[in-house]
């Protein structure tokens, strides 16, 4: 189901493919090594520290602050229809960073290094196709979450 993640999918498979299912449920997941406790975002199946292949997902709050950003005018294939768009790198509470798009609740003035933000899981459906992603919004922005995670 990893093909759900992002606007254009380059690798539709991964040992952490359930990340996309959790995101569809409204949950942003990193990973924790079951052996040594190494925690990271984005998640990875195989521990870089102790080399254990056993991991579990761990939910992140999505709170964080803007680490850097750029407004892209020259878009690659598959992104021309949304250009220009602003890519934001968010430093997450709990560690790790992610790349996401500027959401509608943020103004151009809000997009500054250090601004406190909320990463919000998003989904769009075009017929059969499911696409999940996240946007960067004002703190306090809420979204729908499925009652309980249905996957480990």
């Amino acid at each position, binding site marked *: 189901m990893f093909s759900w993640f992002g606007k254009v999918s380059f690798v539709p498979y991964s040992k952490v493919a359930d990340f996309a299912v959790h995101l569809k449920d409204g949950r942003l997941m990193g990973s924790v090594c079951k052996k040594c406790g190494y925690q990271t975002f984005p998640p990875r199946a195989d521990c870089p520290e102790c080399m254990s292949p056993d991991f579990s997902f761990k939910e992140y709050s999505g709170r964080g602050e803007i*680490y850097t950003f750029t407004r892209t005018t020259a878009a690659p294939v598959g992104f021309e229809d949304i250009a220009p768009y602003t890519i934001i790198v968010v430093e997450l509470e709990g560690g790790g960073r992610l790349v996401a798009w500027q959401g509608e609740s943020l103004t151009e003035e809000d997009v500054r290094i250090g601004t406190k933000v909320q990463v919000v899981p998003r989904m769009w459906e075009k017929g059969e196709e499911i696409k999940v992603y996240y946007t960067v919004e004002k703190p306090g922005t809420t979204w729908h979450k499925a009652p309980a995670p249905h996957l480990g």
Partner: protein
Amino acid sequence: MARVGIIGAGHGKFGRRSDATVQELAFEAFRMAMEDAGIERGMLDASVIAAVPEYHKQRSVAGVVQEYLNLNPLPTWLTEVACASGSAALRTAWMAIQSGLHDVVAVIGCQKMTEMETAEILALMGRVGEVQWESVFGTTFPGYYAMFAQRHMHEFGTTHEQMLAVGVKNHHYGALNPNALFQKEITLAKALESEPVSSPFCVYDCCANADGAACLILACEEKAKSITDKVVWLDGVGCATASMSVLRRPDLVGLPSAQEAARRAYQMAGVTPRDIKVAEVHDCFTVAEIMAYEDLGFCKKGEGGHYIADRRSYIGGEVAVNVDGGLKSKGHPIGATGVSMAYEIVKQLRGECGKRQVPNAGVGLTHNVGGIGQYTFVHVFKRD
């Protein structure tokens, strides 16, 4: 340890070379390098070819180059680490000679980038970053360096004008280089007016794709001395890597791979940054040259913007940087770039650069970055 010397250097015209195939480009540079060294093909033991394969219609490009240069049945192999492929070729040639396996090796960097349709290039551009977590949001090559630029401006007060001053300098010198893609000066005002690409970058912050080739002939110390008295020694070969995902880097104001590669190269060559008189650095985007001044120790971290504003990287300053025009003005045929950088340093140390000659250039350096700093090679060159 015995030394490895460069005994011959050749360089073709960079640009939109719709007149030539990749092997024909390679031939131009190879012929010049062999003439420069004054040796026949029978003296060669092997070749190393640098190219980034996904740009070529011809698969396994080393094969077609080796045949066209009439080097069969000598051994050859391809090196690929994105935009640093050329320096990887030099490094492996150095290793092959130091191991004793080969005595004289030709290093050929060659690339056709205009063979592809614009759409194909834009699709490739969308896969520069880490494709699982980042490219799915439409990240781009200029976009990544632009995000470094934002951090550099935030942490140190570096300005976009300082960044564009790098482009102004490199075009100033590129205008004197007959092999350069753009042989014309630009002004800061004109640069500031250019089309936006990825904030803060506009067109004049970015280098241009090009076709081209460069070639060097390397030899073991004994053979080098017996062949020529104009040897340039490759005395420091530093190489280091950093995470594919730039999000996993400790900061976005420098390249840790460049800092580590520089440390190793200086140590190996027994020099310090203050010994370097001429340098070729990887200015794929303007901020990359500013970070290079800092990562190479020419100035402290954060002072790179002032370094260019105060013209300390011009001829007559502290270290003359990219006086062949750099990637910005010379063009960036990715597989050829690392070899082209080394070519310029060889010619500078031999005092053969005419109007753009750096006075008293005895020690030179190349800084060649693959991707967004996933790989960096720093090489130190000396003339006895």
